[in-house]
Each structure stands twice: as C-alpha cells, then as structure tokens.
C-alpha cells in the first residue's frame, strides 16, 4: 500500500506544531530563537521528501486509490505519477523557500510564520493527492486560510488590503466550488474524482463541473478571477510571494487538472464519457486559456514594478497550462504537470532573487533595481538566467514545457478540431510577446547603468535560488530524467 500522502501530511503537520514549540524555546537560547522554528520546518519538509522518495517507484504506476482508516487524515487519496510528481514539486519549492526564509527573517517572532508555512505545505500535499471532491475541498480551504495568514504576516496596510482581497476572492471561489461539487454529486451520485466524468452526461452535471472549475480557477488565477494575484504577489513578504507563486498557483492549476483528468483517455481512470469531437467544455477552456495568457502578457508589458511583472507572467503561464488542459489528452496532462514543475522552480527562484531583507514593494521598482546586477555579478547572473529561463530559452526546463504544451495542442488539432491549431499559434506568439518584459528585466536590472542602489547580499543568501535554477538547468539538459522516468 502506498502511504506517502498521509505520512507526508502527518510529518508536515507535526513539523508545523513543533516549529511553534521551537519558537517558544527561543526564550532560552538566541540561536534557537533565530533558527529554531525555521530549522524544524525545513527538517520536516526534507523528511517528507525522503518519505516521498522511498515510495517513489511504487507511486508511478496507474492510479492507486487508498483509504487508510486507522490514520489521521483518513480519507480517499489518489497516488499516481502526476500527483506524486506534483507533491514532489511542492516539497522541493517549499524546502528552498524555507531555507531562504531562515535568512530573510532575522528578527521578531517567526514561529507562526513557519507553522503556517508547514500547514500550507500539508494542505498543498492534501489537495494534490485528494481522491474525492470533499477531501479536495477541505484541504483547499486549509490552503486558502494558511496562505491568507502568510500573506498578512507582515501586517502593514498594504498586506492587509491584499490579504482581504485574496480572502474574499478565494472565499467566493470556495463557495462556487462547493456549489459545483453539489452539482456534480447530484448527477454523478458520488464525489470520487474518478467518476466526475459521469457528471458530463447531463446538463446539470456539466454546469456543476463548470462552476467547480470556476471556483478552483480563482486560486489558479484564471482571468477574470486573477485580480487578487498581482496585489498578493507584490504586497506580501518575499518568502510568501515565493511559495505562493511557486507552489500555490501551480497546485491551483493542478486541482483543475484533477477534476478534468478523469475525462482524459488513457490516464488510468476508466473514462466514463467519451467526448469525441470538441465539446463545449473544451471550448470554454480554450477561450479562458486565450484570455488568460493575453491578459497576463499584455498587462506585464506595461508594468514598472518587477513584482507585478512576475505576477502577470504567472497569469500568462496559467494561460499556457490551461491551454494544454483544454486538449484533454495525455500529452496535455504531462505538459501541465511539467509546467507546474518548471514554473514553480523558476518563479519561486525569481522572487528569492528579488529579495533584499524586508524589501518593500517600492524596492522592486525596475527603476530602483536598475544596474543592481552590475554591482553584484552573481546576482546579475541569476537575474539574467532567470529571465532567460522564464522566456523558455534553452538550456532551462521551461523550454521543454513549451514544446509539450504546443505538442498537446497540435495533437488535439489533429483529432479534435482546428480551434486547437489556432490556440497553438496563440501560445507561441504569446511567448514572443513575453520576451518584451522578461528581456526588459535583463536590460534594466543587469545591463542598466548603476543608480547607486546596492545589493550586497552574501552569496549564501542566493544559494536557495541558485540551486532551484540549477535544477531547472538539469531539467533542460536532461529532460529524460523526469519525462521518461516519471511522467
């Protein structure tokens, strides 16, 4: 039996609690106060990675559902290669961000931050491995609440505003998702993800599915549900922005994937309804994908703040993933999971590169960052490589993501309809569009004339992001490590 979902969640939950304990221990030792909570959380995540790795080979087969009854968190989980790999993504990003946070927060009480962080990790793993809609919903709520706590952790006017916006949007999203779940349950007679396909049989079920997707789409920042994201990315502290961009947004898309996956032929589930030609559901997704990538890219073009550029670029990436998802073929699923991985690594890396200690949003203005990469060569190298990587240039992993996305669209074009050829063209042109802002980052931050602002962080501070970038390069040079063996 594959036990990693529950074991990992228990470890992470316990890590969160223990980090609070460690934080209390800070009264007795200044070292403990400075590093204790962070170290405990990081250890928990690292330990979870180990547990995941030990179950790795068993978890790559077709869908395995498990329902351990004697455990806490006992409910229905799914462990297949996609969930395993996405959980792996979440934990890798989480570990890097935790290591970075330890350097980022050097004063004040940090226990609550790490506790929330661990619970967020726990919820993310729960969402990723949930086997039925209700489990998904519960962990979804856990994710939203802990993310809200992390966003408002700094407690400034700006973070509160962003947090409230996030909470309200996500709340309405959850509400809609709940309605959707009810609709699906009403028609399919079950909330198991594997029978979601049955809901497509009736109009009411389709409506339920769409409303559910709409609700989940808030977290994935599908336009027009994206408006919270730029505010949250720019107002929250950099570790929070880093984990939200790298893990939470990705898991948001993965939740959409989980709901739609039963409709994908050949995925290990028995496809209940054969969709045949392009369905209305697919058309809705195509339109949403197109709008999402266009709004993301075009908005990013005119931004003057690096954090806002990065947040709109995340929206654009959601658009690409949604495009791959709309094909409802297996390559599309692989493309989404692989993009979650690549985007997660790169985007959380980017926010960490951005981070001076306690940097405010004003410090991320491109004009203020001008020439920073010149004063600190290693930082400049990281800025340049991260931007290049986000553009999908080789030798970074994102290159293959884009190829996979386009591949899934062209495959769908051959089987399902001409509209997917159009979407493929839209995706590649949008990627060209995105060069406009990514390259601008290189031209101002790395190549621009120095403005007097210095960023003299020690190299150790940049190591978490550098290691994420190194993983991305490895993915780019040797994609077979993941695509052949895992996905």
């Amino acid at each position: 039996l594959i036990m990693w979902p529950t074991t990992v969640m228990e470890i992470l939950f316990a890590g969160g609690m223990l980090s609070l304990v460690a934080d209390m221990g800070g009264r007795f030792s200044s070292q403990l106060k400075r590093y204790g909570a962070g170290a405990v959380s990081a250890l928990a995540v690292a330990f979870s990675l180990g547990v995941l790795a030990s179950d790795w080979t068993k978890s790559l087969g077709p869908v395995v559902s498990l329902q351990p009854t004697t455990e806490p968190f006992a409910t229905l989980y799914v462990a297949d290669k996609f969930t395993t790999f996405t959980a792996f993504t979440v934990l890798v990003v989480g570990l890097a961000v935790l290591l970075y946070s330890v350097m980022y927060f050097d004063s004040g009480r940090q226990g609550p931050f790490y506790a929330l962080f661990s619970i967020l990790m726990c919820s993310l793993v729960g969402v990723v491995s949930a086997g039925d809609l209700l489990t998904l919903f519960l962990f979804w709520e856990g994710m939203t609440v802990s993310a809200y706590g992390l966003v408002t952790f700094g407690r400034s006017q700006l973070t509160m505003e962003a947090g409230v916006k996030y909470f309200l949007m996500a709340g309405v999203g959850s509400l809609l998702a709940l309605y959707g779940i009810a609709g699906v349950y009403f028609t399919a007679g079950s909330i198991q993800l594997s029978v979601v396909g049955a809901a497509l049989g009736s109009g009411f079920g389709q409506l339920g599915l769409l409303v559910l997707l709409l609700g989940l789409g808030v977290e994935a920042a599908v336009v027009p549900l994206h408006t919270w994201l730029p505010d949250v990315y720019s107002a929250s502290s950099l570790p929070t922005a880093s984990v939200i961009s790298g893990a939470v947004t990705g898991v948001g898309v993965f939740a959409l994937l989980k709901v739609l996956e039963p409709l994908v032929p050949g995925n290990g589930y028995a496809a209940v309804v054969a969709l045949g030609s392009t369905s209305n559901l697919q058309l809705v997704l195509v339109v949403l994908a197109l709008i999402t990538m266009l709004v993301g890219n075009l908005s990013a073009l005119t931004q003057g703040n690096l954090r806002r550029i990065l947040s709109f670029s995340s929206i654009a990436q959601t658009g690409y993933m949604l495009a791959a998802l709309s094909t409802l073929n297996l390559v599309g699923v692989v493309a989404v999971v692989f993009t979650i991985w690549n985007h997660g690594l790169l985007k959380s890396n980017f926010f960490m590169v951005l981070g001076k200690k306690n940097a405010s949003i004003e410090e991320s203005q491109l004009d203020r960052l001008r020439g920073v990469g010149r004063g600190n060569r290693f930082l400049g190298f990281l800025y340049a490589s991260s931007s290049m990587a986000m553009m999908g240039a080789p030798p970074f992993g994102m290159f293959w993501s884009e190829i996979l996305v386009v591949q899934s669209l062209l495959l769908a074009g051959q089987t399902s309809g001409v509209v997917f050829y159009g979407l493929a063209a839209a995706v590649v042109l949008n990627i060209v569009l995105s060069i406009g802002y990514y390259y601008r980052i290189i031209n101002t931050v790395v190549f621009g004339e120095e403005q007097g602002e210095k960023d003299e962080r020690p190299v150790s501070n940049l190591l978490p992001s550098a290691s994420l970038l190194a993983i991305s390069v490895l993915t780019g040079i040797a994609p077979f490590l993941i695509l052949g063996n895992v996905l």
Partner: protein
Amino acid sequence: LIYWAWLSWVIPLLGVPLVPLASKVDSKLRGWMAVAASGLGLVAALYGAMSFGSPVTEGYTLWFPSLSVTLQVKVDQLSVLVGAFVSFVSFLVVVYSLGYMKDEPGQSRYYSLVLLFVGSMMGLVMAGNLIQFYFFWELVGVCSALLIAFWTNRPAARKAGLKAFVVTRLGDSSLLIAVIFVAATFGTTSFDAILGPTGIATLGTGTIFAVGLLMFMGAMGKSAQVPLHGWLPDAMEGPNTVSALIHAATMVNAGVYLMLRMYPVITLPQLSGALTNIILAIGLLSALVGGVCAFAADDLKRVLAYSTISQLGLMFAAIGLGSLASAAYQMISQGLFKALAFLAAGSVITALGTRSINEMGGLARIMKYTYGGFLVAMLGMSGLPPLVGFWSKDAILSSAFSAGAIQSAAVLCVFAFTALYSFRALFRVFHGKPGWTKTPKESPLTMIVPILVLAVSVLSAWAILQVQPLLSSTSWAPGASTLGASLVVLGLCATLAYFVFLPNYQKVLGAVQASRGLLGLRNFIHEGLGFDRLYVWIYSSVLRPVSTVIGYIQTGLVEANMALLLLAAGVLFVLFAVGVL
C-alpha cells in the same frame, strides 16, 4: 560511436563553465581556455571532414521521451562541410578576440558566451533531428542577443539585443509549430525519417506547403530576410568579433542550413514549385533591399551587415532556383569573406575609434595588412575570379539564366549592387582623403594573423571546397555567358564606384546635398527603407494601447472583482438556462 561528431560540439560546451573558473587562476587564462576549447573542436571537425566516408546518423540516448527524441548526430556531406567551416571560423575569431578584447571588462562573460555559441552552433549543424536542431537554434539566438548587448553601457547595444531576440523569436515561433507538428504527426523528427519517402512527403499537399512555409519563416528570422531583417544592422552594436562570427559567418547561415536540410521537402514535385518560388522571391527581394541599404550606409559595420542580408538573400534565391550546391557553396564563401571583412573592419575601427566611414580614408599605406585583408574580402564579395565568392555566384547566375529573364535581371542587379557597395567601402575607408586626425597604428599580431589566414582562404579555398563530397558532383566550370555578364557588371560598377567615390566625391556629395529629392531618398535608405518604422508602429499602435486598456481593467477594487466573479457564475447559469450548455 563516431567520436568526432560528438566531440566537435561537446568540447566547446564543456568549456563554458571552465572559463569563469579559469579566471580564478589567472585572468589571461580565460581567453586561452576558449582558444583551447574551440581549437579542440576544430581538430575534431576537421578530422571528421577528412575521414568522411558515407552518411550515417547515430543516436546516443533517449533525450526527450515525450516526442521520442534521441540525442542524435547526423554525419553527411552537408554537416561535415558546414561543421568544418563553422569551427574553422570560430577558432580564428576566438584567436582574434585575444587581441581585440584585451582590455575589455567582462571577459568571463564574453568567452563563456562565445564558447556556448560555438558549441550550440556546432550542435545545430550536427543535429540529427528537428527537436535537437531547434534546441540549439534557440540557444544560438540567446547567445547572439546577449553578445550583441555585450557593451552594456551603450543603450543602443541593449536595445539591439532585445530587438534581435524578439524579431528572431518571432520567426522561431513558426518554426516551433512546424517542428512539433512534424513530431506529433510522425512520432519522430529524425531527419532520416521525415525526409525519406515515408516522411513528410506522404502528407497532403496543403499540409506540406504549410510546414515548409512555417519553416521558411523561421529561417527568415534567423537569416535576416525581409521583412524580419531589421535586427541585423542594429546587431552591429556588438563587438566586432561577435559580428564576424555570429552575424556574418555562422548563425545567420542557420536559416539557409535549415532550408538545405529540408531541401527534399521544399522541392517535392506535388508542390509544383510553390515554396521554391516564395523562397526565390523573398531571397531576391532581401538581396536587393540589402544591396541598396549597404550602398547608402555610412557606418562601416552597417554596410557589412546589409551586405550580409543581401548575400543571404542570394543563398535563398539559389535554393529557390533549385541549386542546392551553389547555395551551400555561397554560404561558405560568404562566411569566409564576410568574416574576413569584419575582422579587417574591426582592426580599422579599433585603430580609429569610430565606425563612420566619413572619418576614415587613406588608410591603405598605414595599415597594410588590414588593407590587404579588406581588399581580398571586397574582391571576393564582388565575385572576382578565381576568389572563393566567384564560383557560387557564377553557378547562381547560370541557374537564373535558365530560369528566366526576370530572375536573371534581378540576380545581375544584386551583383551590381554588391560590386558598388564593396568598392565604395574599399575606396572610402582605405583610399581618398583621410577623415581622421590622429594617425592610427596597425593592429597587434593576434588580430593580424587571423586576418591573413582568412585572406589566404578566401583566395584559395575554392581549390579545397570544390572537391568536397557535397560540391564535387556539380561542375563549377564557368560558362562563357555567365562569366562575361558578371565580369562586365563587375567592371562597370567598379569603375563607376571609382569615379564617384575617389576623384569626384566632393562634387557628387555636393550634388546630392543640393537636391531635395536625392537627399530625401538618401535619408530614406539610411533609415533602412522604413522597416524600423513598421516595427515601431506595430508596438506603439497595436500592442501598447491594448495593454493600456487591460491595465484599466485591473482596478484593484475588490468589489469590482467580486462582482466580476459572480457575474461569471451568473453567465454560466444563464447559458445553462437557455440550453447552450
């Protein structure tokens, strides 16, 4: 394993991380590290060219399983020849860099990127399938953009890097679609499979046309063909070595190389020449546009850049005329004489500290070796027999003669412009009245030796090239009519250039400045025939307004956002109620 075919590109790539490490030991070591890596690559490639027996494709390991892409090298007549040529020029340029970049800051970045470029370019040449080809195709684009902006202090250089990247990526996006379409259709992109009788040839005619056209659009971006050529003149903001290596001799040839690889598809009989005619038209148009602009440009490097566009156009024209061998020959001869021209120009520019030909002149006696190199380059470019440029041009002209009157006239026109701008550059830079004030000095030995080596190869490489497997099957003996026509054009234009630019230059200049029409024409050509305005227009009147409008939508008002969300749900319910869903 065919070791050389792998080593020729893996060695330079392995050298990339070693360059910054070498600087920890000694800062001078960086350049020598690059020389060593590219030198070893050259040895491998030359060994491959000499030991070449029969074409073979060799796979190593499964690289990208989703498209069942194997890491492959394809050793055939084309890749052997082009590979040897690319690593030869790369090696010489890296040696030249030792002198040229001596006192520049940022050498780690420079040499790492150059080695990355050399490795990627060789990887592109040796690639055995389209996906691998595209991977390296993108990588050379990245190196190109970052090297154009090498002198980051210059805003123009930064802008030029961005422009090069965007414009070439625009072309690449269509290539990407074509590549993945082929992959998705056949489950493989190995050249052997898709070019064979069971490959692309089995598709419907319209589909083949679309795939070929998409690939050609990618080639247009990389090889700077109208209207995607605007980035190349701006790319001259980069160091001279970069212009010589990337933007004259190697990377810009990648598009031509792609078309040569896909030649069996482009010329499939069921297309009845539709693709080749488009390629011919675009090629000739670019050759003419480039020729006109090169004739008018005042910046020595821009003259050479426009001439590259023109010569590349000629290669595409050769492909369009159905002459694979002459296109390949022209690609290599252009690479040789243009690299030579850039290296010689770099020597002049370093000596004088300016790129404007108005501030040059009369350098022939002062910089003898440089002059010799530039002279050979210009003679080779204008097609004087028996220099390397002559043979391919003669073959292209002869295919044009058999194709029709319009094609012949266009090709002869291109030849005329080539002679005009070559001799103009030669006369304005090295003869006539000096425009400089401080007497320049000849460049150091590390810069002169590569110039001389390239000059010798422009003079004599034809003897080696014509026995190469790819080219030896074609007869290169010039016909009487083509030889006569091209010599007449060359003689007339050289004489014209002499009279206009040497004894009577001041008079001509006065006449141009006195006439409003001529002056306007000159300025219009100076601006690159208005193509830049087109680019700016697309950005400022299409993209910018749209993104501003989208900016308004992003109000940040939580009420508005919630309303939108609920509205979306409402729309869904309505759609359901009216029965759409």
